Every structure is written in C-alpha cells, then in structure tokens.
C-alpha cells in the first residue's frame, strides 16, 4: 500500500519535472537555432519600440516667460533650452504685421500655431545662423511688407533680441546657397513660400535676412 502511494507521488513529481525540463530544453534549442538571427530580430523589433508612450496629440508645450532683462550676456546654465516642438518665444516685425509665437522646430504643429526655427540651425544668442520658417498665407504673410532697415524682435525667457533687416531674396526651395548654417556670426534668416496670398503650393521661397543689433550672448556653452 505504502509502496503504491510512493510510486503515485513519484509519478506526480515526474509529471511536473519532465515537462518543465523538456520545455527548458526546447527554449535552449530555439535559442541555439535562432542565435545567428537574434541580434537582427532584436534590432528590427527595437525600431518599433520606445521607452515611453508616444504623445500623438497636436498640443504643444510653452516654456516662454516674458522678461525685461537687458543684460549683455546670459549663462548657458540659466537658459531653459527648448525641446523640439516647444514654444520658447515670440517673433515680431515692426510695421509689417508679423507677430507670431516662436517654436523650436518647424514641423506641422509649430507652423500651425506660429513660426519655427529649423532644428538644424541655432537659437538666438548662440552667435550663429537662426533659420525661421512660417507659412506665407498665415503668420509670415506680413513678410510681403518687409523693407530694409525694419527691426525684427525676438523675445525669449532668457533675453530680448533685435535684428535689423539687411535684404530679401526670391529663390527656389532647392537653393542651398540662400542661407549659411555654418556662419560664425549671429544672423537671422526668415523664409516662407512665394507668392503671397496665392492658392496652392509652390517651390519658390522668399528669404529675409537680418543682422543682430542687440540681445544677450549665451556664455559658457562649451565648458
């Protein structure tokens, strides 16, 4: 009787141990067979994964707080550097009916709500080229009135900047010489589609060039 009970217990144990062992062997087998491709599979899989849930909303963050400071310099540590798609300032041109929110990045959300700095260029105070895009029928429609000597004002949370318009140019969207992103001097380039007030899309671009006249230089950038 006791012998039969023991055998029965052993059987139950076997029904747990053997399937688990077999399952383990199967995993090892599958791993061994797929080892040559596993890094590729993981790489392909990671293309569709993100650490955090993506925000698909069309809203945007605003980090712009107007300031009255007129300092000549501002330390990089005091600058709240904008992330892509964030509003961090305002841009206006006196006498031109241009007054828009300024975003970092020029994708659909910024251009729907204002004008945007091309993320491959620089923000004001860097001493480099600032390339700003806007739609010709909305926020940059006023560029049609711009004249040499007009003042462009950019307000950010870390300082207020003024740029003087030096000229304009009409060219195509393929013209890479219309701006120089490697320039070592702070210069503002505003551009939009051309002609103004016209229906449809075009490959013509209207550029406005301006040079900095005032505003704090960001220091301590490369320390």
């Amino acid at each position: 009787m006791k012998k039969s009970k023991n055998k029965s217990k052993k059987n139950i144990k076997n029904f747990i141990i053997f399937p688990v062992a077999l399952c383990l062997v199967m995993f090892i087998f599958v791993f061994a067979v797929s080892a040559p491709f596993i890094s590729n599979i993981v790489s392909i899989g990671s293309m569709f994964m993100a650490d955090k849930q993506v925000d698909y909303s069309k809203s945007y963050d605003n980090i712009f707080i107007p300031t009255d400071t007129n300092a000549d310099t501002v330390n990089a540590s005091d600058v709240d550097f904008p992330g892509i798609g964030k509003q961090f300032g305002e841009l206006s041109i006196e006498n031109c009916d241009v007054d828009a929110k300024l975003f970092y990045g020029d994708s659909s959300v910024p251009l729907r709500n204002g004008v945007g700095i091309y993320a491959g260029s620089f923000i004001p105070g860097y001493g480099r080229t600032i390339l700003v895009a806007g739609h010709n029928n909305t926020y940059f429609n006023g560029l049609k009135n711009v004249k040499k000597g007009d003042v462009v004002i950019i307000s950010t949370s870390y300082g207020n900047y003024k740029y003087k318009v030096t000229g304009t140019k009409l060219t195509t969207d393929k013209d890479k010489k219309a701006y120089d992103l490697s320039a070592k001097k702070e210069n503002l380039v505003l551009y939009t589609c051309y002609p103004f007030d016209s229906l449809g899309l075009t490959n013509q671009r209207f550029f406005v060039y301006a040079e900095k006249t005032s505003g704090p230089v960001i220091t301590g950038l490369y320390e």
Partner: protein
Amino acid sequence: MKEFFRNKTVKNILYAVLAFVLSVSIVGVALSSLLRFTVLNNSFLTDALNNSNYYTDLCDEITDDLMDIGDASGLDKSFFEGFINEVFVREDVQDYIDKFYSGDKLEVDTRHFDESLRTALDKYISAHKIQSYTDSSLSYFIKEATGIYTQHIELKYFGMLQKLAQDYSSKLVWAMIICIVTAAAACLLMIFTNEWKHKGVRCIAYSTGAAALFTLLIPAAVYITGIPGKITIISRSLSDMYLTCLNTILTDMFIISGVLFVLFAALILIHNKIRKKAT
C-alpha cells in the same frame, strides 16, 4: 543490435529524444496554425482594423495633415472639415489589404480622392472668387495632398512584409503537415514500441505538458516585459492596429496553451487508467 535497443538506458534516451521531437512538433503545429489563421489571414487583419477604431482615427489623422497643407496653401481650415469620407477610406484600405494577400503590386487607388479634391477646389475657388493661383501651384498642392492620403492608406511595413508573407504562406502549410506527421509518428513509436502502453502515454503527456508550458511562457514573457505598451509607430491609428493584432495573437497563444494543458490533464488521466488496468 536487438540487445542494444533492449538496454534500459538506451531505451530511456531514445524515448527522451522522441518526447523532445514530439514537443517541438506540437509547438510547430500550434505556432504555424496560429500564423496561418492570424497574420496570414485576410479576415484577421480586417477584424483587427475594425476592432481597433482604426478608420475613425485614420480619418482624423488624414484630415489633420490635410489641414496643415491647406494652411500652407492658403485654404480655409473649414475646407477639409468633413472632406474625408470614411466609407471611401475603408474601401481603399481594404483594397490595399486584398492586394497584400493576393500578391498584387501594393498601390493605393487615389482616383476617387483626386477627383473629390479637384471638385472641392473648383467649388472653393468659384465661391471665394479667387484669382491668385496658377495651374502649376494647384497641381503641386493636389499632388502633395494625394501623397498625404496615400501615405495614410498604406499600412506601414506591409510593403516589406508582402514578399515574406507570400513566400512563407505556402511553406507554412508544408511545415504544418510535416509537424503533424512527425508528431503522429512519434506518438505511434512511443505507444507501439513500448511493452507497457501507459509508459508510452506518459511520454506523450510529458511532451504535451512541455508544449503547453512553452506556448504559455512566450506570451507571458511578452506581457511581463511590457512590450505591447512600448509599441511606437508613426501614428496613433497604426500603433493601435498593431497593438490589437499583437494582443489577439498573444491571447490566441494563451488559448492554445490552455487547450494543451487540458490535453495534458486528459493524458495523465488516461495514463493512470491504463496503468491501473495493467497492474
């Protein structure tokens, strides 16, 4: 030679190998049939699209993007409001899916969209008495808008997967047949080469249990590591659609695992019954 096969250790090793082969075959049948009835099945994808609120989201996304391009082109925001018709979007997406499974060239038929847009533009121009436009600027706009529509109708990554799906669809049937034949052969060998039938049934039970565990651990691992929550694809509608597909596949795996566990339990009962009879 006969003596060699009668040796208990050799016998045990042979049965262990057979049990392993049987487990792999069962998992092979389970996974290949899962693929056959999910990923490689037209109605599975159609259901996934319907169940994930895909079309409503897609229409919103297309309208949003068209509004952006409309903004850049001097059109009122209201121009694209209600312009996208869900019925036509459904037809175009379904047509794209049908092409995917039939192996036809994956192209989006944009004739309807194109015609609707031209008609709406003509109406808009005459209603607003607009004169400042050229044929080329309008054609450029229509081309870009059609491009946006096409991009949204296309199911991302399906272009890459089509050839793979075509190649593996027929191979999968063969893989399933081979797995079924191998599993049947392994079962027969275990039962008919064994003096004690209950020992053969026991081996089959071990394999079934292992296969059940295997098919349980894969979806469990996917959920534990939080992979479904990390899926990130260009748009909300596509992400939701892929997530629905993944969830359905994983749920199906849980069901398969459950069926195998039931089978495992039944085999244990049969084993006990036969053993009692034998002793």
